[in-house]
Every structure is written in structure tokens, then in C-alpha cells.
């Protein structure tokens, strides 16, 4: 990493300001996402919850879309902050980054307004009308251009996190296009192809944002622990390639129930089991990683990353278990899949992003703010555990009841205690995330011009 950049330079301040805007936008999306998620969960507790503008049909797409928007806005801001430092020169174009921000903000506003007025694509996860994808692709190309032209001098000797960012940037473009192939009759007129390609695109898109987030985490951890070799050693690259293989082919374990060619399942199962290597790596290095001492100035960000490590372990065990076909046939289509998705999105992705944001601002934060954020982190960590367990419990109940051919109303009744726990823990989870998000918005707003 070069340190040639003058941080008091007005241009440097401008590029920091635009990056910070993305991060604030991300936290605003997160606050809205948890609010709509909480309202959506009330439908489980109150079946007669009003079917108006705040009905489950509106709030679930809002919750999901805004959660994904949080991830992309925050990681974009973090990468915009890092790349001038890595390349030792200013961001290629601040106006381009500003245009990117305006388009991304406009996309969020348009999609959210569309959800409120009932304009859906009817596609799982990407429920906004397909024409919005054109704007997304446009601003993503702006991001790629700015990224590549900024880091160009260091590309030949790039550390692994730059490779990860390049991969994430490329595969987001591939998967967002792939997610819209249903617009072609060849895909739309065949439900098996349509569903398979949907899982493929969505699964790999998650892999793409994981690459962006994990790359950012690795960069921060390298600075926090002072381990400058982390980004260049062979093991880091080996796991990067394994991660890339999983990004490309590991989506298949979602499609065991889809009657595609049997080889899809076989490939999926083999690739899923390579996750055991990640698991072994975590287990073998658990003590060493946890005994690592951070530089004192980055203690809080280190705690976020360590908290995420616990969720990586829990979710990896769950992911491997539900990738085994015998188990998958009972668990797929139950809340266990939701537990995996929520555990990964909140426990891993969100905590890692919060850790990276803390890394960026920790030196400028007052100690009383640190304490409040730490309380928020504890609230997230504990409530997420109950939230996650309640979803697994509900999933097990659903799987057992469906196996015994119960009617859906009976299945719902059996799941109710777990869904009540899910909603209750969701309230505390929302409070924790709300506190942390509010504090970060306050920190960023008070220290850096946005």
C-alpha cells in the first residue's frame, strides 16, 4: 500500500466526501430495511395485520431491496475510500463518482416508490421493474471505470484484495444481466430453466458482493494487525481461488428440488463440500486469530471483525449441512434457508461492513461514541443468535410437519412459538442495528463534510 497521498489536499477531501456519501446512504438504507423488516415480521404475529400500504406484500420487497442496497452502497463507499491509498494517487474522476452516486440514489428512490405503488417485477430478490437494471448497469460501469483507472499502476503486483474487488465488480455485472435473462422467451417459457437460472444469478451475485466485502475486510485487517504479508501470501490466494470457484458453481445446492439435469446436483454437491476447506481453515486458525492483538487505535473495528468470525463459523456449518442432499430435501423451502441468508447478511456481511466503516473513522471517534457503538454491537450479536435459532426452529417444525403431510394452517400453528421468538428478537436486533447505524451517520456527518 502506498502512502504518497496527501490527505489534506482539497481533491483528496472531495473524494473522501463522495465516498462518505455512499456510506451514509448505505446506513440510511439499512435503517429503512430493518424498519420494513420489523413491520413485515408482525404479519407472523398478527395475521389480520392491515393489508394496505404496509402489508407484507409491500414490506418484504422493501426490506430485501433496501438490505441489498445497504450492502452495495456501503461497500462502494468503502472501496472508493481505499483505492486512492492503495494506488498512491487520487481517484481517477470525482465527477464520475458523483454521477454514480446520483444514479444509485435515484435507483433506490425509484424502486422504493415503485414498491409502495405496487410496481413489481415479480422476481425473487430483484423485485423492481427490469428497466431499472439499465440504470444499475450504467452506474456500475462508471464504478468499474473509476476503480480500474485508479488502481491501474498497481494491478500487475496487486494484493489479493484487489483481485477480490476486480472479481466482485465483474461478476456483479454478469449476474445482474443473467438475472434478467427471463425477459427472453427461451428462458421465460421454461419454468425449470427460469428457476435454475434465477438461483444461479442470485447465488453468484451474493458471491460477487462477498468478494467486495471480504476484500475490504482483508485490507482493513492488514492495517489493523500490521500484517503486511496477508494480502500476498499463497494461502490467501488459494482461498481466493476457492472462493471464486464457489462463486461460479456453488449456487447449485439451492436447486436440488428443481428437475434440471442430475449433473447440476452432482456438481453442486461436490463444490459445496469444498466449503469444508474454509471450515477447516477457520477451526485450525481459531485460537491464533483470536489471540491476535490489534493496534490499539483500531480496537473497535477489530471487535466487529471478530464478531463476524463467529457468524462465519456458524453459517458455514449450517451451509455445509444443508448442502447434503439428504438433509436438503427436508430443509429447502423452510425457514432454515432464511436463517442461513439472514445469518450471512447480518452476522457476516453487515458486521464486516460496520467493521470496515469503524476502521475508517475510529481514530476520529469520541470514546463515548465508541461505547455506544459497542453496546449496539453486543445487542446485535446476542439478539441475532436468538433470531437465528428461532428461524432454524421454525424451519425444523415446518420440515417435520410437511413431511407428515399436515395442512399449511397446521404447519403455521406449529411454527408459531418460534416465529414469535423471531419477531421479539427481531425488535432487539433492530434496536442494536438502529443504534449502530445512527451513531455511524452521526460520526461521519460530524467529522467529514458530506
Amino acid at each position, binding site marked *: 500500500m502506498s502512502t504518497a497521498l496527501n490527505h489534506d489536499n482539497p481533491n483528496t477531501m472531495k473524494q473522501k466526501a463522495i465516498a462518505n456519501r455512499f456510506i451514509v446512504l448505505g446506513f440510511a438504507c439499512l435503517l429503512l430495511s430493518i424498519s420494513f423488516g420489523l413491520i413485515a415480521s408482525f404479519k407472523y404475529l398478527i*395475521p389480520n395485520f392491515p393489508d394496505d400500504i404496509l402489508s*407484507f406484500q409491500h414490506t*418484504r420487497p422493501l426490506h430485501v431491496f433496501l438490505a441489498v442496497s445497504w450492502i452495495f452502497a456501503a461497500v462502494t463507499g468503502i472501496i472508493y475510500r481505499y483505492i486512492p491509498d492503495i494506488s498512491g494517487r487520487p481517484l481517477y474522476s470525482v465527477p464520475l463518482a458523483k454521477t454514480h452516486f446520483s444514479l444509485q440514489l435515484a435507483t433506490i428512490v425509484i424502486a422504493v416508490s415503485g414498491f409502495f405503488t405496487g410496481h413489481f417485477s415479480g422476481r425473487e430478490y430483484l423485485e423492481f421493474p427490469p428497466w431499472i437494471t439499465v440504470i444499475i448497469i450504467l452506474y456500475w460501469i462508471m464504478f468499474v471505470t473509476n476503480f480500474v483507472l485508479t488502481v491501474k499502476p498497481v494491478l500487475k503486483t496487486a494484493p489479493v484484495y484487489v483481485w477480490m474487488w476486480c472479481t466482485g465488480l465483474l461478476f456483479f455485472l454478469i449476474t445482474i444481466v443473467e438475472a434478467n435473462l427471463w425477459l427472453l422467451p427461451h428462458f421465460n*417459457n421454461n419454468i*425449470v*430453466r427460469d428457476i435454475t437460472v434465477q438461483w444461479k444469478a442470485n447465488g453468484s451475485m451474493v458471491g460477487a458482493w462477498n468478494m467486495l466485502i471480504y476484500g475490504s475486510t482483508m485490507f482493513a485487517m492488514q492495517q489493523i494487525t500490521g500484517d503486511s504479508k496477508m494480502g500476498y501470501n499463497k494461502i490467501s490466494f488459494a482461498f481466493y481461488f476457492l472462493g471464486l470457484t464457489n462463486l*461460479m458453481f456453488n449456487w447449485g445446492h439451492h436447486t436440488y*428440488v428443481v*428437475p434440471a439435469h442430475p449433473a*447440476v446436483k452432482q456438481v453442486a454437491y461436490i463444490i459445496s463440500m469444498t466449503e469444508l476447506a474454509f471450515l477447516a481453515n477457520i477451526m485450525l486458525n481459531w485460537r491464533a486469530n483470536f489471540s491476535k492483538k490489534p493496534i490499539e487505535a483500531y480496537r473497535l473495528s477489530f471487535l466487529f471483525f471478530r464478531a463476524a468470525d463467529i457468524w462465519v463459523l456458524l453459517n458455514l456449518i449450517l451451509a455445509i449441512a444443508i448442502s447434503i442432499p439428504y438433509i436438503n430435501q427436508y430443509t429447502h423451502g423452510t425457514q432454515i434457508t432464511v436463517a442461513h441468508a439472514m445469518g450471512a447478511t447480518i452476522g457476516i456481511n453487515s458486521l464486516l461492513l460496520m467493521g470496515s466503516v469503524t476502521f475508517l473513522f475510529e481514530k476520529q471517534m469520541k470514546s463515548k461514541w465508541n461505547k455506544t457503538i459497542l453496546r449496539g454491537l453486543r445487542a446485535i450479536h446476542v439478539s441475532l443468535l436468538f433470531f437465528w435459532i428461532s428461524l432454524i426452529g421454525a424451519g425444523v417444525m415446518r420440515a417435520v410437519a410437511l413431511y407428515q403431510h399436515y395442512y399449511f394452517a397446521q404447519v403455521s400453528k406449529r411454527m408459531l412459538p418460534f416465529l414469535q421468538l423471531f419477531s421479539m428478537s427481531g425488535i432487539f436486533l433492530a434496536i442494536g442495528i438502529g443504534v449502530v447505524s445512527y451513531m455511524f451517520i452521526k460520526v461521519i456527518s460530524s467529522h467529514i463534510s458530506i
Partner: protein
Amino acid sequence: MKKVATISILLVLYAAYSSWIYTSGTAIAATMTTEAMRGKQLWQRLNCQTCHQLYGLGGYMGPDLTTVITDKGRGAAYARGMMLSGGRQMPNYHLSVQDADMLLAYLSYVNGTQSR
């Protein structure tokens, strides 16, 4: 150089696998009728997947509908009734009989693809 070669090999495998998924890997015998296609459009416009799943893809508020037409204890009449009047948790969308027929045609098509 080794890294670039590894990436290139993976990208070629990914492209080949994707092509196969887009074609013979997901080829099926069942064809979608015009009415079923209209049903699919309605399914998407009403955002039914927010609550219901097809082949495990969708929300969990309501039941999976992949085999609703042939399931014991459910069937087309049950599905039609739910569509036309709603249920305890399902909102009443005030669908017309024609709308319900189109959705049933789509669900029958999906049900028919169940075994390869």
C-alpha cells in the same frame, strides 16, 4: 502468470457450464400454453412469490405451490377458492374468474414439470 492462467481456466469452465445450464441442462418436455403464460405474467404482476414458493424459490409466509394441483388435500378447486376469496393470511386480490383460470393454468404447467 499462474494466477492469470488459473482465472482463465475457471472463466472458460464457467462459460461452458453456463451455456449448458442455459440449454440442454434445463431442457424439459412440457410446453407452456398461452393461458399459462398469461398466468405467469399475472403471478409476477401480483408479486405472488413474496409469500409463495415454486421449486423452493420465494417467500415463506404461504405454502409452496409447486405441486398444489395434484397434492392430496389441496388441488385445483382449493387453489381457485383461495385465489378468489383469500384466506386467513392471504389477502383477497378480488381476482376475476378469468384471472384465476390463468393462474391455475400456470400452476398446472408448473405441476406438470415436477418429474423430469
